[in-house]
């Protein structure tokens, strides 16, 4: 279980969200929604253990993220960054293979798992191409495949559907759904239709440190959606 307790999220020393409590379990597919700047990405980065910009406690399977061994952390949690500019011409295969780093395992089993991830994301035909010579959507697929190759228990995805075409979106959402049968997937996303159709649970971050968490069916109703889009900014 990935547990957030009394979480205060900060951005550049400024608190953006106070008092969040949430628990994410295996077998759940969470959609995280909220207006721009409400703290969705900050929350995800904190839960992925790559940001110390929070107070409160985050534990993964009972172990605090502060002071955890980075390898162990990456075996539990994988994190899809919102935007990642590639700088060196690694091949697609090698880039996806980097997801195997936390396991420090044998080359052979790594190669098999990498191939599986490439196949799942339907980018086998690109595997020898340089990551610098990909389109925006193809690059996104490579990053998703890298997270899949990591085979972690929790998948934290920051706007995974960006740059993807409509057909591929449906495909990758089904992949996430399949993964969430055994593992836990948490997806920040602005596409409410996708969330309604695929996510089992929803975390809705609202203004003034309010939030709603629960199953999709209970959260995604007319009144809540109104609150999501009508609260503009924080009132003092």
């Amino acid at each position, binding site marked *: 279980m990935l547990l957030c307790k009394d979480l205060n999220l900060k951005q550049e020393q400024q608190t953006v969200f106070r008092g969040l409590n949430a628990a994410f379990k295996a077998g759940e597919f969470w959609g995280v929604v909220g207006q721009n700047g409400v703290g969705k990405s900050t929350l995800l980065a904190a839960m992925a253990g*790559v940001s110390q910009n929070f107070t409160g406690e985050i534990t993964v399977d009972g172990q605090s993220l502060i002071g955890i061994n980075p390898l162990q952390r*990456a075996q539990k949690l994988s994190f899809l960054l919102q935007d990642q500019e590639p700088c060196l011409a690694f091949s697609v295969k090698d880039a996806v293979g980097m997801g195997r*780093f936390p396991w420090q395992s044998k080359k052979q089993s790594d190669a098999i798992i990498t191939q599986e991830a490439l196949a799942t994301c339907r980018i086998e035909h690109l595997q020898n191409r340089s990551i610098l010579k990909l389109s925006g959507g193809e690059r996104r697929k490579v990053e998703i495949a890298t997270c899949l190759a990591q085979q972690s228990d929790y998948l934290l995805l920051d706007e995974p559907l960006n740059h993807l075409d409509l057909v591929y979106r449906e495909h990758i959402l089904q992949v996430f759904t399949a993964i969430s049968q055994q593992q836990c997937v948490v997806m920040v996303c602005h596409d409410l239709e996708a969330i309604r159709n695929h996510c089992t649970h929803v975390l809705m971050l609202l203004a003034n440190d309010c939030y709603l968490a629960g199953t999709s069916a209970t959260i995604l109703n007319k009144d809540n959606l109104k609150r999501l889009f009508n609260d503009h900014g924080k009132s003092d």
Partner: protein
Amino acid sequence: MRDGLVKLLSHWWFWSLLLLLLVLLAMSVGSVNVPFELMFDRESAYFEIVWQLRLPRIINAIMVGGCLALAGLLIQNLVKNPLADPYLLGVSGGAATVQLMVIITGLSLSQNSLFAVGFLGSMMATLLLLKLSYQGRVRPDKITLNGVVLAFGFAAVISFVLSTATGLQIKSMMFWLMGDMSFAQPNVLMPVLLLVSLLLLLKHHRALDLMARGDLFAQKSGVNTQRINLMIFVITALLTSMAVAQAGTIGFVGLIIPHLVRMIAGYHHRQLIPMCVLVGACFLLAADTMARTAMSPIQLPVGVFTAMIGVPVFLWLNRKV
């Protein structure tokens, strides 16, 4: 045909062979040319020239070239800036400043003590930079700017000292500023340092690959980025300080060799690390041999030739790849 040549260049045995040939060539040529068959003849009059004078300088060039190229690879990885160079850390400036201070005070130190002083100076400069760029963790983004600014500060001190120095002092000062292999004796610490660095870096080659794609990417993938960054910083500082202490400021090697090696050997540090050392060694040995022989008996600064070989080779490869 160019493809074939690039492929040939990507093999480590090609560079090992080239290095061996260069060593033999460098032992043979100079103010007197020694035929190959006489080089190994103990009775020959040239024996001493070859083994006592030329070989130490050859070893020195190989070590300094290897250290600088490896340091360049590391610093480019650390600050994620393709224009980074080992001297970006201000280490050469620190070494030169302290050494010039010692020379101008008139303390007549032996050559060896001057090396030691230079090494201390460069380490002090690096520690200062680390202190300035450390905020709970190494901040690669701060290192670049702080390093450049510190180097300017050192340059100002050096200009001041040079403009007040007497003619005799200036000659020995220029050694540190232009880079010269003719004085230094091989230092046993250098191969040890290079070997230890190589083993340590090769152990972390996968982490270094991930770091090259960005610190955040590496961190989320399970790399202990703070520790690796600190390791890179310390190794770079040691390698560069050692090279500066041995041979003064030799530019260009640390900047160009890592780029060249990436073009021919790809982006994996498992290959990049040993290849950089090998190619850097070949490159500096070739440049130093030319500097020694081109206008012999006059010895030219090696920096002239690092640029004269490096610029065309680099531009040709950059067009190709």
